[in-house]
């Protein structure tokens, strides 16, 4: 900031403009204004005059006044810099009689700012934030000035627009100017502003447009304002519809990702794995651990931790799944109730283990390339992390499909699941196939957990929030059918996200879930086998 001020000051001096020649309506004798600032009697008047200025020298002057760095020195007003040097109001260094940089004598007292005018100075200084360095700050300063309804901000915004190169900030500045010009006394100005806001479909300007419409007398402006409001309204409805649809697809992808593994272990193999949620949890904790390791040992590469975490989560959950199959589940094939209870117990052990080791709440930072989102329409942002999850879900689905239906190993898996005895007779090692398939299911859960950590929490009980939804998806889709899982996930996701905004009230999120559950139950009453029923001999055997 200081270097910026210094550069500005230098430019000022070089171009030989000085405070006196500042362009625009706020141009007047700064030196005189500064000396009147120093006198308590005239301070208020001067502040009022300066409030409409867009001159950077005024910003410097007011900041010095607020920070207590403005001094009366040998009959003139000077500013004390951080380095102890003095400058005049135009930013030129002040020299003493020997031509050396002047110093304040000790005991000099700064010009006092009256407590009552502090707010005015603060508001005036806020206007200058549209010249700041950070584009985001400039954007929000522009927005704030636009809603302030303060016509004194117009020249400041206009000057900022002249020098602005960032596209987003330019749009924000133009919006802000339009909003302020709604209050202009010139009907043509108002008309232009209304048209601009309508064209931009600016939801933020609705209150101002409504206020304008209430007091407007000019028929052309009235008509334009009405059209603008209608345009904005129509745009908002369309935009929201797209937004809800994206939310639905994104939730569908989350559900798909978390239930793909279950589609294998429960859908194909018929194992009721109540520890499925904990397999997701393992994936989330893998992401957390890798992140911490990167933060501690490779702080320069912390952004790429996720690239390592994702395959590692696959491995960790896969290995744990293998151990679970080998240690417990293989003894319980064909005994679903025992499997249910035992895997539930295993889930609790894993939960408690995580609690003892990691504590109760940790969280995963998204890498910077997955923060924020893409603004597809004004006011509608698709977060990168959600887009990433949609893509990942599709990729995982594609890989699983290739593996099951287009590879020799997949053929073995399907053969064993459809007719175990026959497959064994043909020389397939059903033991190995069981173990590997189960491990594949848990590994997929690990990947899901790792990805979901980007948008959710990482805590020992996180599995509980996933397990019910996962089973619901697989059962609704039809046990044993991959395509069923996909369709069910998307259906549940989209219908949930379309119902939720339609319900309203104070607990829409709960009621939307209840409504979806009721629909699912009703559907399963009607078609117990789910959306895509397994056909053929194997299905009738298991039924």
């Amino acid at each position, binding site marked *: 900031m200081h270097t910026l001020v210094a550069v500005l000051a230098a430019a000022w001096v070089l171009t030989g403009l000085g405070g006196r020649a500042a362009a625009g309506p706020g141009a007047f004798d700064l030196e005189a204004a500064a000396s009147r600032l120093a006198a308590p009697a005239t301070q208020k008047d001067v502040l009022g005059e300066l409030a409409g200025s867009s001159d950077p020298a005024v910003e410097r002057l007011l900041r010095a006044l607020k920070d207590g760095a403005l001094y009366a020195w040998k009959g003139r007003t000077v500013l004390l810099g951080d380095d102890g040097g003095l400058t005049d109001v135009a930013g030129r260094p002040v020299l003493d009689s020997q031509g050396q940089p002047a110093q304040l004598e000790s005991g000099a007292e700064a010009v006092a700012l009256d407590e009552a005018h502090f707010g005015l100075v603060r508001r005036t200084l806020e206007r200058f934030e549209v010249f700041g360095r950070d584009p985001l700050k400039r954007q929000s300063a522009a927005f704030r000035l636009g*809603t302030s309804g303060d016509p004194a901000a117009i020249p400041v915004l206009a000057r900022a627009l002249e020098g602005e190169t960032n596209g987003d900030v330019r749009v924000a500045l133009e919006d802000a100017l339009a909003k302020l010009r709604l209050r202009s006394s010139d009907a043509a100005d108002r008309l232009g502003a209304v048209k601009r806001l309508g064209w931009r479909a600016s939801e933020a300007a609705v209150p101002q447009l409504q206020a304008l419409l209430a007091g407007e007398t000019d028929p052309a402006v009235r008509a334009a304002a009405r059209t603008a409001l209608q345009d904005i309204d129509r745009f908002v409805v369309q935009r929201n519809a797209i937004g809800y649809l994206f939310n639905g697809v994104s939730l569908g992808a989350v559900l798909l990702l978390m239930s793909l593994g279950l589609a294998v272990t429960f859908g194909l193999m018929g194992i009721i794995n109540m520890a499925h949620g904990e397999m997701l949890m393992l994936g989330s904790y893998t992401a957390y651990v890798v992140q911490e390791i990167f933060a501690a040992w490779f702080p320069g590469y912390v952004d790429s931790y996720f690239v390592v975490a994702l395959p590692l989560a696959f491995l960790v959950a896969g290995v744990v799944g293998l151990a679970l199959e080998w240690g417990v589940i293989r003894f319980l094939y064909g005994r679903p109730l025992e499997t249910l209870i035992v895997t539930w117990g295993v889930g609790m052990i894993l939960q408690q283990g995580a609690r003892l080791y990691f504590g109760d709440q940790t969280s995963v930072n998204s890498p910077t390339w997955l923060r924020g989102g893409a603004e597809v329409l004004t006011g509608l942002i698709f977060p990168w992390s959600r887009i990433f999850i949609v893509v990942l879900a599709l990729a995982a689905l594609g890989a699983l499909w290739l593996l099951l239906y287009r590879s020799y190993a997949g053929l073995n898996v399907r053969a064993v699941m459809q007719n175990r005895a026959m497959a064994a007779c043909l020389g397939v090692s059903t033991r190995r196939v069981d173990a590997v398939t189960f491990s594949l299911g848990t590994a997929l859960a690990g990947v899901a957990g790792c990805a979901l950590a980007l948008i959710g929490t990482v805590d020992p009980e996180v599995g509980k929030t996933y397990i019910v939804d996962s089973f619901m998806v697989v059962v609704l889709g039809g046990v044993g059918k991959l395509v069923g899982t996909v369709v069910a996930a998307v259906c549940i996701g989209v219908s949930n996200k379309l119902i939720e905004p339609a319900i309203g009230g104070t607990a829409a999120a*709960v009621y939307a879930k209840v409504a979806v559950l009721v629909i699912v139950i009703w559907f399963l009453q009607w078609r117990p086998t789910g959306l895509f029923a397994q056909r053929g001999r194997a299905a009738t055997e298991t039924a």
Partner: protein
Amino acid sequence: MSAWSRREFLKGSLVAGSGLAAGIGFPRILTAQGKEPIRVGILHSLSGTMAISEAPIKEVVLMAIGEINKAGGVLGRKVAPVIEDPASNWDLFAEKSKKLLLQDKVAAVFGCWTSVSRKSVLPVFEKNNGLLFYPVQYEGEECSKNVIYTGATINQQATPAIDYLMSPEGGGKQKFYLLGSDYVYPRTTNKILRLYLTKVKKVPESAIAEEYTPFHHQDYQTIVGKIKSFSAAGDAAVINTINGDSNVPFFKELANQGVTADKTPTMSFSFAEVELQTLDVKPLVGHLASWNYFMSLKTPENLKWVKAYKEWCKGHGIPDKQCVTDDPMMHAYIHVHLWAKAVQKAESTDVEKVLRALEGLEIPSPVGKYKVDEKNHHTWKPVYIGKIREDGQFDVVWKTKSWVRPAPWSEVTYPGRDCDWSNSGKGSFDVVGGKRMWLSDKS
């Protein structure tokens, strides 16, 4: 009772024997410490879901007891803590408090966090005339004779936060989105805030939105979308009473959908420095919280306390990253000293006498002046608004001019209702026709 049976004889001799043993054993202890120590109970969850918040409270209570003992104890006696772990289980809270009061005969208990746990121990304390010090901000509408509430009431946290948001420094907000988890604290807080906004602040009903999500809710897409539309004009703020883990997906979604703290700030009442240490703070930076205390306060007492706590952490194996102080810890630390001061003043550990001594008792604290109300068993303290920083600490951006009077019954929901436990008082009362109607008489 003419003839003693063998069994009764055995029992009798056992009692006599143990009495004798005690008689022989005790003088040695007495000569070592002067007198028998005063036992106090600590009833905070050290395991389960609440441990993350409650375990640090146990540390500062122990630290305060250590300080008191180092300075010679109370009434010339040492203070001996009895620690019970109710494991985040509400029923266990009642059981353990019964054990502390009846078996350990503790002079006071420092404990509880959630309102459910407090409600579950309340009958035990009232029946056995115990004394509970409760350090956490809560929804009010309660005023027990046997509890000293040191945490904030709604008018010491939530309503000043609204005042701040509506002030020029707070951005002059005119619209409020009340978002919380679906349980008693958010519902009661929001009920009071809605009345406060409409009646006192003259905010129209249409400028208030209210929404609740279940515990562990993960998907905040729709709600953040609603908040975006609600706050499009830049004149709205979110009042957040979401509990625990759901804050993570909520703030991540806010950040990802481009809702900035600068334009639409979120004011939270339920997480402080301790909880922030475990979260990804980046999406939260710039958002606000309202408390009676922040670790970053620059009062001399606070600098001293924080330094002492850092020492304590070193001596007790608490990693530096987790060694932070926050609002409930400050209240817990101070109320141990309050109790000791009251016992000293009353020259007794008798609950009635200690309660008398606590009335209007003032004590220096990390937030400056701090006192127990003369009548209603709550405490006076200032309110601070803090802005979340990258390091999980807060920048103080606003504070009340002086300490704030505690109002367990909110002025807007129960006009005229208050609470008085001083000499003539019988607890909560309504004023009907200029006369006090005690609630205890009504029922």
